């Protein structure tokens, strides 16, 4: 047997492997000495073909489908969010397709938390309204809580506005009336949606407006923390108030504003900028965004998005009544609304069916899921767990305070966030020099990190990275901080630290895969007594800051870095 096969043989083998047709007669004519091997290759072509057709048949008969959950056959992952994954699934008992949202299990999952999630699902299932996504059921299977709902075929309002621009007033009002009715039902069941926005409202192929929650951006968790796009949230909510029905009404006002102008009443880069605008000039009047709208309509929308909650509608019914009475003669507006309703139906059959066909009938799964709906319960810490781990060759070792690390050791932080959080990790060495370990430019993971379990520093270009200890030097202190939003004060300091440490700038070691900058690369001659005093001070300062301005979670790890004996 040749160790270095004939190049022609290799090419033919490659053709077999790549399912390209080969003229075997010609090949054996050209290489009579290789006839036997060529015959073998031809046989392999047949073997490969046999496996391929068996596999194709299996795929056709549905044998390659995904596993089951409960009685549902899980067909396809169609969405992933902070708190769960949404699958298209089939209910064989009722012979229908459903959307199945499986809650992402967390470390602190126990019977009680599963029970709570189930209870939420069951409460959702009690909301029966044509404009609210139908929840079929909630259950737990092999430790995973799931909720299954109807599947809505159709675009969401954000997609509709992106496609067509701002809507006609009549069409926008009809949608808003439907959503008022949806919210009446939701609030009537003692629930708060908490995430009313254009991408959570769908228009089914039949023109039905459905309030749902895709779950891809659950902005709230049970402790009321929020992240993501805050333009739809009321200012009091942004300041940390509990989610209440009035917050949903504000969000609905923002949605109506958006449908009419493709803009938001208060825009800003982050929560701080949005609140600043609320406290300063206030929302931009709708009439300034889009001229030619009837004054009664712009007045109504401006009222719905007023900064002062006392000026807004207090119930969904009040909001609905105001919409219905719109225009000079209320009857006329209603007539227009009816016309718009018919128009929507025609569009859904005409234009939209075309668009949907092009989009290969993207099935939109919409799920109300757990925490979004709950008014904030007892305050839970932002971070369920954070552990500094030594990535040792024989397996990970959790580092307790006082643990000893040595040059060459690779460390990572395992952090489990209950909600999307901004995480900051800093390291102080024996000399009191502080270095920013996270966030660092170039990492695949940045702030805010989604809820769930993460390994920091995370990956660079897809390769998992650790922090590496590059020298011995006494005490190494690590401070991990997490906040629901960006902490400007902290970010300024982190930036300063990073630049102050340019002599130890972020570096990558290629010997055992990429690593982040060294931890404790200075060998200090100080006695081992200086326990990260500056970080301890910072932690204290920030906790003062946190107590007056919302939640901030922090944890300190103190390790000893020594040369290996």
């Amino acid at each position, binding site marked *: 047997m040749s160790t270095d096969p004939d190049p022609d043989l290799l090419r033919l083998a490659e053709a077999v492997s790549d399912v390209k047709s080969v003229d075997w007669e010609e090949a054996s004519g050209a290489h009579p000495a290789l006839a036997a091997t060529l015959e073998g290759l031809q046989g*392999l072509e047949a073997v490969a073909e046999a496996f391929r057709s*068996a596999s194709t048949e299996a795929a056709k008969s549905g044998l390659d489908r995904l596993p089951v959950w409960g009685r549902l056959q899980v067909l396809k992952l169609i969405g992933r969010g902070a708190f769960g994954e949404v699958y298209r699934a089939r209910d064989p008992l009722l012979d229908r397709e459903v959307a199945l949202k499986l809650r992402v299990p967390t470390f602190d999952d126990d019977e009680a938390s599963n029970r709570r999630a189930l209870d939420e699902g069951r409460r959702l299932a009690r909301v029966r309204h044509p404009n609210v996504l139908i929840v079929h059921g909630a259950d737990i299977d092999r430790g995973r809580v799931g909720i299954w709902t109807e599947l809505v075929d159709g675009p969401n309002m954000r997609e509709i506005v992106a496609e067509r621009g701002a809507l006609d007033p009549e069409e926008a009002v009809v949608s808003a009336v439907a959503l008022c009715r949806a919210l009446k039902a939701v609030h009537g069941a003692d629930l708060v949606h908490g995430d009313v926005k254009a991408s959570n409202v769908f228009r089914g192929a039949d023109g039905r407006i459905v309030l749902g929650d895709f779950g891809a951006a659950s902005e709230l968790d049970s402790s009321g923390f929020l992240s993501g796009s805050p333009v739809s949230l009321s200012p009091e909510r942004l300041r940390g108030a509990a989610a209440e029905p009035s917050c949903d009404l504000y969000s609905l006002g923002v949605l109506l504003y958006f449908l009419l102008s493709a803009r938001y009443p208060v825009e800003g880069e982050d929560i701080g900028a949005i609140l600043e605008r609320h406290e300063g000039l206030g929302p931009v009047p709708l009439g300034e965004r889009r001229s030619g709208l009837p004054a009664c309509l712009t007045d109504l929308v401006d009222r719905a998005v007023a900064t002062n909650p006392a000026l807004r509608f207090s119930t969904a019914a009040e909001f609905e009544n105001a919409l219905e009475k719109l225009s000079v003669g209320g009857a006329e507006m209603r007539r227009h609304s009816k016309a718009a309703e018919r128009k929507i139906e025609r569009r859904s059959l005409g234009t939209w069916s075309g668009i949907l066909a092009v989009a290969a009938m993207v099935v939109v799964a919409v799920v109300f899921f757990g925490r979004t709906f709950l008014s904030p319960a007892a305050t839970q810490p932002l971070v369920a767990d954070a552990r500094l781990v030594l990535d040792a060759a024989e397996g990970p070792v959790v580092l307790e305070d006082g643990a000893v690390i040595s040059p060459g050791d690779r460390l990572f932080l395992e952090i489990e966030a209950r909600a999307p959080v901004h995480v900051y990790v800093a390291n102080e060495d024996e000399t009191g020099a502080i270095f920013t370990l996270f966030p660092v430019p170039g990492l695949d993971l940045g702030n805010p990190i989604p809820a769930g379990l993460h390994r920091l520093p995370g990956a660079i270009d897809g390769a998992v990275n650790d922090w590496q200890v590059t020298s011995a030097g006494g005490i190494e202190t690590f401070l991990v901080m997490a906040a629901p939003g960006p902490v400007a004060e902290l970010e300024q300091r982190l930036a300063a630290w990073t630049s102050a440490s340019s002599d130890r700038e972020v570096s990558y070691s290629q010997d055992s895969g990429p690593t982040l900058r060294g931890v404790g690369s200075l060998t200090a001659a100080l006695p081992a007594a200086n326990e990260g005093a500056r970080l301890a001070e910072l932690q204290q300062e920030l906790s003062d800051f946190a107590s007056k301005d919302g939640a901030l979670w922090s944890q300190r790890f103190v390790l000893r870095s020594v040369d290996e004996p």
Partner: protein
Amino acid sequence: MRNGTISGAESDIESTARLLERVRGGDPAARNDLVARYLPMLRRWSHGRLPRAARDMADTDDLVQVALMRTLNKVESFVPRHEGAFFAYLRMTVLNSVRDELRRVNRRPGRESLDRDMTAPEPSMVERAIGREMLEAYEKALSDLPEEHKEAVIMRVEFGCTYREIAETLGKPTANAARMTVSRALVRLAEGMNEHRP
């Protein structure tokens, strides 16, 4: 991109290793992810490899799933040196436990009529397509190949894996390197098949 392909491979191996680690820790999500990753391909593969009677049982696919679940339950006892080893282990144990399960089902009372069908040496789909001689020659020659070549051939020929997947599993730097490995393995296999043919 720095070390693009190598990094990618590393990260994926890491992710399977990490999934296994989490499965050992009793994390049901990690189990589900592993099942979602391997079940469809194992099912398709079993479809070609199992005797017809087994294939025609309405719940053959469930047998594969049960077997996979069982394998994952025993995963504590398995520490893979690389992802390829885990895949090979999975394939072997799933196949064995599907066979065991079929035997067990056959022994159940009231299954006499089925029993005959099950134990009859009915050819698998692949065997029917290429004939017993060819399949035996292929399998014998395959078993003579070095481990890496064997894996490369099984992944490409039997599972229809992409070169990228093969590269990740075998720890090859690029998809092209994996393709080279497959081609070399196929040439050696072709030579070997010739020796094993009557």
